[in-house]
């Protein structure tokens, strides 16, 4: 994806809005379904204006029942629709967990390939916005651990614009995590490209090397990408390569391993709690694959193994530039 500064700068929320609009235009079977997504335009305004333009049967306000939303989306998919459901916040996806894990993830397999589940489950996730409990969680590992699902997360407006459309176009179910504190970050977005044409855009299931470097590789995703890019810029003497994983399931180990073979060091960064998170998987695989190339152990910079803390503590919970650089220093000094 080339970024020509000629393209307008928009927020990630707007880029997602545009991407959803394109998806609704492209395929009449695409529906949006979620709480408050219609007249209100979603609590983050990501669906702003879409109900007005596509009608109440394409952009559907749902009752306050997450299992009901995902469960009926399954039925709609069985009827040939391509539902894009919104969970209002990360902490409210759990009532739908059963339908996601036992049905969305397994129906294609159960049907021996006869039924597809082209459902996209959009989840604004992560902290850093001073919210109350249940509004700042990072539950991506639950879904990455679940066979049958794919998991994507964009880190900038251009990626959001492209990957939301790729997610919707995928015949596999995709849990699409939107880094909510980056909703208002701006970036230039090229809307002239066709996100479904892999000659024009990158494969969404591949990691993206956003910055090359020679001393340490940082693997990160979603809200942490900006933080890690800033850390890479701030780090004077250490040359840092920054990889945006983007696809959390499947993980693109080839790109990470390729980088680590060159740098010899890996720091994995995410907001979610550490234990059995995405970082654990990356560390486990890279420690094995790059055993002989690693000059220091793979290190993780993550949220702690505590419930997301009240907002006045979140700056201590969230990995920031200093913590990332601190780990980079340790890895370099190993």
């Amino acid at each position: 994806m080339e970024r020509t500064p000629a393209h307008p700068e928009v927020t990630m929320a707007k880029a997602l809005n545009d991407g959803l609009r394109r998806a609704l235009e492209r395929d009449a079977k695409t529906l949006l379904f979620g709480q408050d997504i219609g007249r209100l335009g979603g609590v983050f305004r990501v669906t702003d204006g879409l109900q007005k333009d596509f009608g109440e049967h394409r952009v559907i306000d749902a009752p306050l029942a997450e299992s009901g939303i995902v469960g009926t989306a399954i039925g709609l998919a069985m009827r040939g629709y391509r539902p894009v459901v919104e969970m209002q916040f990360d902490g409210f996806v759990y009532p739908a967990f059963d339908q996601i894990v036992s049905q969305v993830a397994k129906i294609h397999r159960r049907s021996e390939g006869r039924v597809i589940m082209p459902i996209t489950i959009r989840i604004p996730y992560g902290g850093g916005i001073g919210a109350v409990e249940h509004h700042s969680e990072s539950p991506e590992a639950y879904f990455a651990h679940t066979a049958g699902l794919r998991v994507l997360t964009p880190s900038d407006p251009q990626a959001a614009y492209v990957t939301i459309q790729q997610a919707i176009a995928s015949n596999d179910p995709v849990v699409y995590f939107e880094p909510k504190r980056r909703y208002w970050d701006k970036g230039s977005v090229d809307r002239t490209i066709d996100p479904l044409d892999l000659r024009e855009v990158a494969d969404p299931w591949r990691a993206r090397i956003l910055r090359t470097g020679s001393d340490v590789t940082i693997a990160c995703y979603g809200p942490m990408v900006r933080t890690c890019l800033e850390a890479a810029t701030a780090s004077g003497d250490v040359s840092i390569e920054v990889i945006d994983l983007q696809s959390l399931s499947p993980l693109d180990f080839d790109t990470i391993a390729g980088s680590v073979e060159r740098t010899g060091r890996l720091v994995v960064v995410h907001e979610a709690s550490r234990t059995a998170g995405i970082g654990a998987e990356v560390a486990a695989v890279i420690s094995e694959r790059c055993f002989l190339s690693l000059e220091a152990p793979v290190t993780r910079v993550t949220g702690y193994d505590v419930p997301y803390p009240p907002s006045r503590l979140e700056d201590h919970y969230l990995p920031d530039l200093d913590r990332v650089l601190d780990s980079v220093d340790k890895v370099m000094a190993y």
Partner: protein
Amino acid sequence: MDESGRNGSAVQLLTPEGERVTHPTYDISLTDHELRGLYRDMALVRRLDAEATALQRQGELGLWASCLGQEAAQVGSAHAMGTSDFAFPTYREHGVTWVRGVPALDILAMLRGVTNGGWDPNAHRCSLSTIVIGNQALHAVGYAMGITFDGADAAAIAYFGDGATAQGDVNESFVLATVFNAPVVFFCQNNQWAISQPRERQSRIPIFERAAGFGFPGVQVDGNDVLAVMAVTRAALARARGGEGPTLIEAYTYRMAAHTTSDDPTRYRMASELEVWRLRDPIERLKVFLARQGIADRHFFDSIDDEGDLLADEIRVGVRSMPEPPAEAMFDNVYCEPHPLLEGQRASVIDYLASFVDPVGR
């Protein structure tokens, strides 16, 4: 036996003694051919069920959930469906899948352990069996919402048990069905038991009354009366197709067998209960009626028995010769689109198994 869940007004068109009675609201008029068809399906489903139970005992199936005693509820409701309607059964609805045209062996494949599915849901307009209690009620509502969006002339029917009425999903499906006025019929077979739990452990009042609390009609039908079941389901499906929204049907019936072949009902229920229900047997009842009315004769009943023997043979032979899936089949259809992780795991399994092959190649 507790009959508190039984409402005096349960719709009945055929008494346990096989007498045809009338009902002020519901009636049905079937040709002799159709009536014999109902009998045939019920009898063959019972045969299939018995054969599967036997095969499980012999170790040929991993498990079997018998529908013994529920044939009228299942066959009657499925016969009420049109070809464009879509059924969402559970693990016990062999009578439904049978009527939807799913071949006997496909019904058994899941319990043979060669697949978690068994048939093409779209070809038969019948979803695969849902095992997680209640999940499919929401699928049916979503499917029905799709029917509305398509402007199609069809309805969805969700099957579930008395136990399932306690689940959040089933109640949410009532909410969504009413809010979207979805063309869906909720067909609850109250077979009195959820494994060892009697109906009262799930609801204090008759189940069909639940619907009114959500703003849609509920009706209780004698679930062992195939005519009444068919009449009530037909009416509900017609209502749904006509844009009048959901209906909850409670088919009052009885699980004559154990919950599954793994279950031991002597631990929790009285044999006497079974005796009472034997007198209400759904197949006997229709048989008496057909015979008395001269709609079917001994020759007919014998021919169905013969057909049952053939079916049993087919099942016995067919189950034993179902092909074993190869190891790498576990990676099939997990995803539609390429997935490097699984491709790697698939390759590793193939390599690993190849490493056991005699190096000389014998």
